[in-house]
């Protein structure tokens, strides 16, 4: 096939919904980077002022602005990989004649150390042993544990429509569109106690109802598949092995709310997943499960995938919406919320992959069934991505309320090499650390929040007693500094100042150091404009709380 011209690419995308990101990707894939001419052509084609477009392109980590930038290997420097050989792999790539650059965690913490080059993700320890391969399936839970989203995922062929239907699926959608009103569907989701699995834990039924009742059409379902939180890789395994569950969940959300269009906003770092989702969508369209006249009714729902380009903040729902719309991806001011002013300022559901994939089994088995999966008063399940110093890293769907210690020791085999747990992170990195007696928490928000942390999206990194917690905190804070969007002062300046203070800068006396860091923590938590800046200081706050002696030792060493 001949290389497409600028005009070909622009014509391919300009009349599609949310065209900016796919068009930029198309140019980058054609040229190996985004040249000035390419950006000018895109600006003209989509009528975006060129200064704005340039600024927006620079926002994304994985848009290359130097020739051959796309091929340049990018190596994970997240906290887990730093313990597992980022340095060795980087040196080995350099020795092999490459020019590697660091990237934030691309969601492969169960298979360290990942490298992205071109459009491929490879993993391995040295330049010569890099391989690409499918996402590992979730390990089996202990006997007798009932799962919701992982219940069917290990079945062979599950990712194909045939394999999915073989086990009776899309039945939930059929049941809904042929036998239930949209209100009935919302009632079931509401009664089940399903809450958002992307971080904030907002009740899914309430969100759907708000969109159903909001004036303005067309309405939109957005699946948040940005999964940018370091230490989180659950949405990847769900999409890779069970894409139809997500599609069915989105169709259910659309039916329930009256939405006619949907987007899966997928993080850049999951190129294989993009292919799997595209294929599954084509299959579903072919089978009358998406598009016009779904299952012979007059229900219509169009779905497409949009790939991000490397920006953690684009997982924040309003930043995501700006990104989809081709705007500079700063978060929006809220209220108004997406349920009334979402994509193109119209009512929009934004839900996480896991939330949406939970909907079909809940509809099939009932609200009580889902409620009952949790322990004690807690409803349902939560997928935990477990990584770091742990024998069996991977994704575990636990009943909400399971003791953390049980997950670490009974489910995942405990800490290797005879070591003990020094600390774990919560919510990927966003919940900061739990350590000491607080490791006795159960995996539910009411247990974790009073300890100054939160479960969030469910990423847990384990650090054994040999790890330098000040260094881990610095690496983690570097992530937030790298990803701070720069919209608001407390986070833009605060993340930088915290990194400096964890990296030999700032006052040398313990009192003055703690005083400054505590002030930064407090102002960031209280006044930041979005969850990133509010969460980042939980790292330093918990470092001060659990490891004051390490801080002293670190400052004394510096002096």
């Amino acid at each position, binding site marked *: 096939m001949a290389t497409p011209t600028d005009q070909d690419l622009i014509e391919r995308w300009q009349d599609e919904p949310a065209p900016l990101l796919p068009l930029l990707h198309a140019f980058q894939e054609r040229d190996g980077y985004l040249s000035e001419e390419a950006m000018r052509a895109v600006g003209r084609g989509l009528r975006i*002022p060129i*200064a*704005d477009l*340039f600024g927006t392109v620079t926002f994304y980590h994985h848009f290359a602005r130097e020739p051959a930038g796309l091929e340049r290997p990018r190596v994970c420097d997240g906290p887990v990989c730093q313990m597992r050989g980022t340095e060795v792999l980087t040196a080995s790539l350099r020795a092999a004649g490459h020019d590697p650059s660091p990237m934030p965690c691309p969601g492969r913490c169960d298979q360290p150390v990942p490298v992205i080059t071109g459009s491929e993700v490879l993993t391995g320890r040295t330049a010569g042993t890099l391989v690409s391969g499918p996402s590992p399936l979730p390990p089996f839970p202990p006997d007798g544990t009932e799962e919701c989203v992982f219940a069917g995922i290990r079945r062979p062929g599950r990712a194909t429509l045939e394999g999915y239907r073989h086990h009776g699926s899309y039945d939930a959608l059929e049941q809904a569109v042929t036998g239930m009103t949209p209100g009935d569907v919302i009632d079931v989701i509401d009664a089940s106690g399903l809450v958002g699995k992307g971080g904030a834990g907002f009740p899914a039924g309430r969100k759907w109802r708000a969109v159903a009742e909001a004036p303005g059409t067309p309405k939109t379902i957005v699946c948040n598949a940005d999964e940018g939180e370091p230490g989180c890789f659950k949405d990847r395994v769900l999409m890779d092995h069970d894409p139809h569950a997500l599609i069915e969940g989105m169709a259910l959300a659309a039916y329930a709310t009256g939405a006619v269009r949907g987007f899966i906003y997928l993080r850049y770092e999951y190129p294989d997943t993009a292919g799997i989702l595209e294929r599954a969508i084509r299959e579903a369209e072919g089978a009358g499960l998406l598009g016009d006249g779904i299952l012979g009714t007059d229900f219509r729902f169009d779905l497409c995938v949009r790939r991000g380009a490397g920006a953690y903040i684009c997982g924040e729902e309003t930043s995501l919406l700006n990104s989809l719309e081709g705007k500079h991806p700063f978060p929006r*001011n809220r209220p108004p919320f997406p349920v009334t002013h979402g994509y193109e300022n119209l009512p929009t559901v934004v839900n996480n992959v896991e939330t949406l994939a939970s909907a079909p089994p809940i509809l099939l088995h009932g609200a009580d069934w889902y409620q009952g999966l949790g322990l004690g008063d807690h409803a349902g399940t939560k997928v935990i991505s477990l990584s770091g110093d742990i024998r069996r890293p991977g994704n575990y769907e636990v009943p909400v309320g399971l003791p953390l210690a049980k997950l670490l020791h009974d489910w995942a085999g405990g800490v290797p090499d005879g070591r003990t747990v020094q600390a774990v992170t919560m919510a990927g990195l966003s919940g900061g650390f739990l350590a000491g007696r607080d490791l006795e928490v159960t995996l539910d928000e009411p247990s974790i929040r009073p300890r100054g942390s939160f479960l969030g999206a469910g990423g847990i990194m384990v650090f054994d007693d040999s790890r330098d917690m000040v260094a881990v905190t610095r690496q983690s804070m570097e992530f937030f500094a790298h*990803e*701070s969007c720069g919209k608001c002062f407390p986070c833009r300046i605060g993340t930088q*100042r915290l990194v400096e203070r964890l990296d030999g800068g700032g006052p040398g006396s313990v009192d003055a150091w703690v005083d400054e860091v505590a002030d930064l923590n407090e102002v960031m938590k*209280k*006044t930041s404009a979005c969850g990133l800046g509010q969460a980042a200081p939980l790292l330093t706050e918990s470092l001060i709380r659990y490891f004051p002696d390490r801080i002293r030792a670190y400052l004394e060493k510096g002096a």
Partner: protein
Amino acid sequence: MTMKRNGTPSANGTGVGLTMTLDGEKVAFTRGETVYEVAERHRSEIPTLCYDPRLESFGGCRLCVVEVEGARNPVASCTTEAQPGMRVRTRTAALETQRRILMEMVASENRDLDVDPMHGYASQEMAELLDRYDARTGRFRGATSGTSRPDDDNPFIGRDYENCISCYRCVRVCAEQEGDYAISIMNRGFHTQITTEFGGLLKDSACTFCGQCIQTCPTGALGDLKALANKDVPGETEKTRTICTYCGVGCSVDVMTRGDRIVGILPAMDGPANEGALCVKGQFAFDFVGHPDRLDTPYVRDEKDGPLRPSTWDEALDFAAGRLRKVVEGHGRRSVYGIASGRAPHEAAYMMQRFIRAGLGTNHIDNCSRA
């Protein structure tokens, strides 16, 4: 973004009778007003750095945070719409501490905290807040942000981004007020940088040199180079409100003078025609007034293509009147067409049209500054 332009009061009267509690006092507001606007009306003196009343609220600096009963965290008053029954506190000890720390943080990222007021209209905003919050403590010291552009050798706009605090007022005024989209935000986080397309010079961008970005900049990172050239002219700066003479829009300006010298132009933020907007001429082209090449005495040219010779007012006026009369007598009153200079004051323009209409009896009168 989704916020309406600030404080669009409802036209249909649905906002009548709404009240909220502000620092313990019951106050009225109209639907659509932000908490900040209501508080301003009641002189709460909430500090701001990213705010410009002409622009959509942005919510970046977070200095305007206030406590709303029932909310977990303080909220930015500039982006929060007032709601009936809302209970708001604007100056608790906790808020004032947060604001002081924020100001200390802001101070830590700039090279200079104080700049000459000739930089621009808003250039003292940050320094004034640093004093108000006693924030010149030197805490939070660390890397400074922003890369200045001394290579941008345009004669109007200094781009000293080492004093930039990333409030993006310049970018927003350029887009929202001017519609020029000449500048934008590059990179993220601490590395954000105001830029033109591909980091080039302003003259190669869509910039029209209207100067609005300068005048809204709260730190003097952007500076009015024309005015700054006069910063050492002795004397107190006096400001005189007048109307720009360059075109028919009628933009209000405050002319800055020291002694009998014009040292700079400030847009009048309350100018009814321009709300602080000017164009390159009104903003920067004032230096002809005191230019040495300017005529300083009447001159007369005795014959076509002949040399000019210095003269007196009486002789020059008699000479001009005589020639005009000759033209009118020879060719009729419609053979004369008057064009008043845009650089002449309004009074002169008025006299000119009186002279042409009443004096010569024709409507052939115009002004070079049609717009």
